[in-house]
């Protein structure tokens, strides 16, 4: 098993403003991460204490390492705040197990903030 996986993350609907105004990000994540989603770079995952990197970990990772604004504009209680829809390869993440979806090399995860203007 590879030690890292590469994924593509895209922000839409104004969320990119929270991430350095960049819509597209290429990320390399550890293939195995701690169960508690600790995203510190030097964290060591003990045998049997890890899980494959999933969307919940990705949310924590984005909050800890890429977010440039107040955390509550993106994350709330371990998931995305209300009004954000997550897509796993263009599919509503609810169909893919939400936070528990195990990321695979080459996946594209999109975070969309709902718009309300008309």
């Amino acid at each position, binding site marked *: 098993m590879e030690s890292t996986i590469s994924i593509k993350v895209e922000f839409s609907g*104004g969320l990119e403003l929270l991430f350095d105004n960049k819509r597209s990000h290429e990320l390399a994540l550890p293939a195995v991460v701690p169960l508690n989603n600790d995203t510190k770079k030097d964290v060591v995952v003990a045998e049997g204490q890890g899980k494959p990197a999933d969307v919940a970990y990705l949310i924590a990772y984005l909050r800890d390492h890429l977010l440039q604004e107040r955390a*509550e504009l993106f994350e709330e209680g371990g998931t995305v705040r*209300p*009004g954000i829809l997550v897509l796993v390869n*263009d599919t509503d993440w609810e169909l893919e197990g939400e936070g528990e979806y195990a990321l695979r090399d080459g996946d594209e995860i999109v975070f969309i903030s*709902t*718009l*309300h*203007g*008309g």
Partner: protein
Amino acid sequence: MDTESLQAHDNVHPLRQEEESKGDREKDSETYPLPLEDYKRYGRQMILDGFGLQGQVNLSHASIAVVGAGGLGCPVLQYLAAAGVGKLGIFDADTVDISNLQRQILHSEVTLGMPKALSAKEALLRINSRLNIEAVTEAITAPNALSLLRAYSLILDCTDNVPTRYLLSDVAVTLGVPLVSGAAQRLDGQLCVYNMVQGEGVRGPCYRCIFPTPPNPTTVGSCEELGVLGGVTGVIGSLQAVEAVKILTGMDQRPTMTIYNALSFPPFRSIRLRPRREACIACGKDATERRARERAEGLEVTLPAVDYVQFCGGPTPDWEREGQVSGQEGERMRAGDLKQLLDNGEQVNIIDVRNPTEFSIVHLPSSRNVPLKTLLASPSSYLSAHPTVVTCRLGNDSKIGADALRKALVEERVTDGLAGEEPKAAERTLEGKGRPAEGSGADVEGIGQAGAPLGERGPVMDLVGGLRAWSFQVDSTFPQY
């Protein structure tokens, strides 16, 4: 044009002459399902596979409610009117403002100040005089929504606020009709078809199925705050009109969600959505059973018991008014007082906390641009020996900026005091309280404002009502946007 002349215009309109030609049309309908002239008028769409004569007949019998006659509603209405939809309902409680004309293409300089529903109706009748249009200038609310929308077979959400989006979704579910929802902001657009029939008794998700919890109002921006490109509302509005025609003609009835960004490559993305949620308070099992019970008992079918505005976190703040609310004595400066200071030749550290794009549209001549985010990151770097006045467009962000600067001022003093070193500037300022700190070293020119400390650190205030107030109260030639 005022409402009275609009009605006069209506009265002479060909629509009203229907009676005279009725005889001819009845003759047509004996042989053909559409009036003779419609074959030529709608031929370009009738020859499309999957549309055909039946598609046109369906459209001519359809009734569509378009809620919101703004950036999305205008293109929607324009295409649906041109396509020959039998009845159109236009619902909008707003009036036409000059700032609407950049994207709300049915309205014009001639209809400024007119209710949008009436302005749009007038424009549509110029396109298609035989249209049956119901223009409603009353706001759609939970108490009136079902009775206003009951007559329609399809609802198009072209609104601009969260509570109405939830309300329209619940109305669509309660009435059993699909909802074609559009939204646009900045360079982004979103389109979604909710409550779509997918075969025998099976319907697609409603808005609540996807977004059971509304966003915190502080994370929701408006077109006024965030901006929007006219063509972007046009893209989404046009897509809504296409979806409506697809549904009414039976060309396609899948639930869809599409997102658009003018700068992305590719600009469109189609999304596979979850199914309806069983626990949804609008379209889930319990709610469906409740409605069935109400129908069986001959009762009026009701919406979920929700206070839509409270559910969405309370009313949207009126930022222009909020910006004018007076704060603590000595913490806020009126536009006229700032003008006085500048006219007296006082040096004022004017900090404008808008983003650079807005700053470059227009700003006070002696102001400098420190975007709020930058200022909040290290407020102490922006303190000055001169009085500081923080400003922005309406006077809300500037309050946040001024608070941060004052906090930095206090922290600076505390740090100096704790250090026990020789008293620095901040200590000495207290002596000069209430009058200009003459000769205190630097080129300080204080102001005798409300007991704020003077000296090497001038007092920090924010401009009440922001640059809009400056334009209203001091300089009417200063552009507002």
